[in-house]
């Protein structure tokens, strides 16, 4: 799974432009899936037969998109104006490296500190005074490489130090990599897997995928906000890296199914899987669109605690990946087997 995660995280696919991620996933699953299709929004919907016919129809879902930017304009000096896609805190932007259109390198400008007055030196610029420099000196020159509407992603390294992984886009390529691994393995029951688009801009992919599939149950594999860093105490940390799979009772989109929470807890106890409960009502994920689909879908998000979400580099512990994977897979089998 290590190589798979690296391949997925280092590829670029902001919301609405997930094709390169989808192509990697199709290539990985095509020899293992019994059926797959791409819907009108770009969701990849995969069907995999298991050893048994399930009692309940289950949808397992993760989103392919990452946060980033769109080129909005090019100035007469050849600088690129940009707008955010998904929620990004401006404090992580000055002087960052980016890739436009998968191939043009650029950096976000930062006025030299030496030339700033004391207020300016402590202030993060607004979007209207942020620019990307690709080295062009004029609009004509920049237009040879970049057009308004082009996708922009963070450009950073991927590092696996044996204990943790640092990369952009772990949210939610980690979820995608776990689903690929499930599809590549022998399953107890027939299951549906949805690799969805546009989570970061309003859960759009999950909404239509859940409608199409019409499942009884859903498991969402996500990467969630861990804030267990110095200076942040107690419940404000939300969850902790290296403390296992994260289960929430409620976030800003969903109140989770109590039966599934209880089941997850007992699976963890019986199988030596580490889990932790989210200690704050924060964030939100595709469960918000799925649990309200049609006449309702019993839904649980099983999440990977992830620091520094929505930035050039986020961080997860490798041990948590296995806890999330194992918990989700056993839960899936229990749901399909009608044991809940």
């Amino acid at each position, binding site marked *: 799974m290590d190589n798979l995660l690296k391949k997925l995280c280092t590829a670029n696919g902001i919301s609405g432009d997930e094709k390169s991620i989808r192509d990697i996933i199709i290539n990985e699953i095509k020899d293992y899936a019994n059926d797959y299709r791409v819907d009108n929004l770009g969701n990849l919907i995969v069907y995999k037969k298991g050893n048994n016919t399930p009692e309940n129809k289950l949808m397992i879902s993760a989103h392919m998109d990452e946060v980033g930017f769109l080129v909005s304009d090019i100035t007469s000096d050849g600088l690129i104006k940009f707008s955010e896609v998904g929620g990004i805190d401006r404090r992580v932007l000055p002087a960052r490296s980016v890739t436009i259109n998968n191939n043009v390198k*650029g950096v976000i400008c930062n006025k030299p500190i030496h030339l700033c007055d004391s207020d300016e030196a402590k202030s993060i610029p*607004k979007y209207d005074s942020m620019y990307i420099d690709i080295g062009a000196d004029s609009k004509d020159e920049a237009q040879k490489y970049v057009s308004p509407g082009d996708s922009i992603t963070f450009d950073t390294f991927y590092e696996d130090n044996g204990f943790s992984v640092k990369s952009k886009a772990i949210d939610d390529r980690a979820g995608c990599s776990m689903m690929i691994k499930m599809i590549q393995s022998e399953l107890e029951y027939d299951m549906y897997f949805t690799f969805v688009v546009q989570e970061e801009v309003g859960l759009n992919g999950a909404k239509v995928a859940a409608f199409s599939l019409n499942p009884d149950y859903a498991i969402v594999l996500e990467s969630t906000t861990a804030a267990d860093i110095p*200076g942040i105490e107690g419940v404000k940390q939300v969850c902790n890296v290296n403390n296992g799979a994260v289960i929430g009772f409620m976030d800003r989109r969903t109140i989770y199914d109590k039966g599934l929470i209880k089941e997850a807890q007992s699976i963890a106890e019986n199988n030596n899987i580490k889990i932790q409960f989210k200690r704050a009502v924060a964030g939100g994920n595709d469960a918000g669109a799925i649990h309200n689909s049609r006449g309702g879908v019993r839904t649980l998000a099983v999440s990977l605690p992830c620091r520094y979400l929505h930035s050039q580099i986020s961080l997860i512990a490798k041990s948590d990946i296995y806890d999330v994977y194992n918990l989700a897979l056993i839960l899936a089998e229990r749901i399909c087997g009608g044991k809940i």
Partner: protein
Amino acid sequence: MKKLLFDLCSVGGVSGSETSAAEYCCEYLKKYTKEVRVDYNNNVLAVLGNDKSDKTVLLDAHLDRIGFIVTEINEEGFIKAEKCGGIDTRTLLDACVIVHGNKDLFGVVCCMPPHLSDGREDKAVSADNIWIDLGLPADKVKDNVSPGDSVSLYAEPKELINSRISASALDNRAGVVVLLKLAERIYKENIDRKVCILLSCQEETFATGAKTVPFDLNIDESVTIDVSFASQPGVTDQYSNIKLGKGPMLCVSPILNRDLFDKLRTICAENNIDYQLEVCSCNTGTNGDHIATSKSGVKTALVSIPQKNMHSQAEIVDLKDMESTVNLLVVVICKRR
């Protein structure tokens, strides 16, 4: 030149911890002179030209880069760091860093995700609240990192269009590369003077290299090579006219020598080397100030490579400006007087 620049931007060498950069440069200079040494402060000094001459010219570029120094490691293995040089706090949250411990380790500067924002998106982090996450258990961190270790900002060096290079530490590895390339260009030439190339330590903190090394040399003339500001959004006044790719900046300042400035300007004109003017009405804020007032005074000039986004991970220079600077210095050194 590009590979050399990328390599040098990728070694550490934060102010006061320049060992790795000094060793790299020393090895490089050994190809062109036998007389090269690194002193206890990590200053690199190479002597070329006529070492019997009683006339000495000094060429100086500072070797250090801005960064941090580790002050504490907490129970969870997070590393507290304080700034070492003029760090720009606006660029720090979620910054990639390299902690130079027993080995180089990748880290991230801790920050909160937007989902849990305190709503203070307009404010940069305070410099006294910088914590670094290596993503390793505390015992592993403590095995490899100690208070006093240096930390550098990391951005993979990259080529933009128009021969522009972006990297962390182009201030002043661009100047260092110019002097390394100069050594390569002049070592076979018949030069009448003694030429000292100094890659000096601690410019970004206490100018220790520029203050101490020239004291032991009898210098007649000196040129400092550094970077200076080019036009970019928000930059006004004289620097709004400085463009990347239009040649090195020659500085006029009360502390610098006017005759030497005129000589450089004439050489540029006679050799079709583009140059731009920089005017500092007081001191220059570079090593040039210290060298000019060394001992009983040294005739000093300042030549700067235009740069955008100074003191950030996104510094940008143009390779053409670096090449022009080398060309200018070759004439300065090799021209018979």
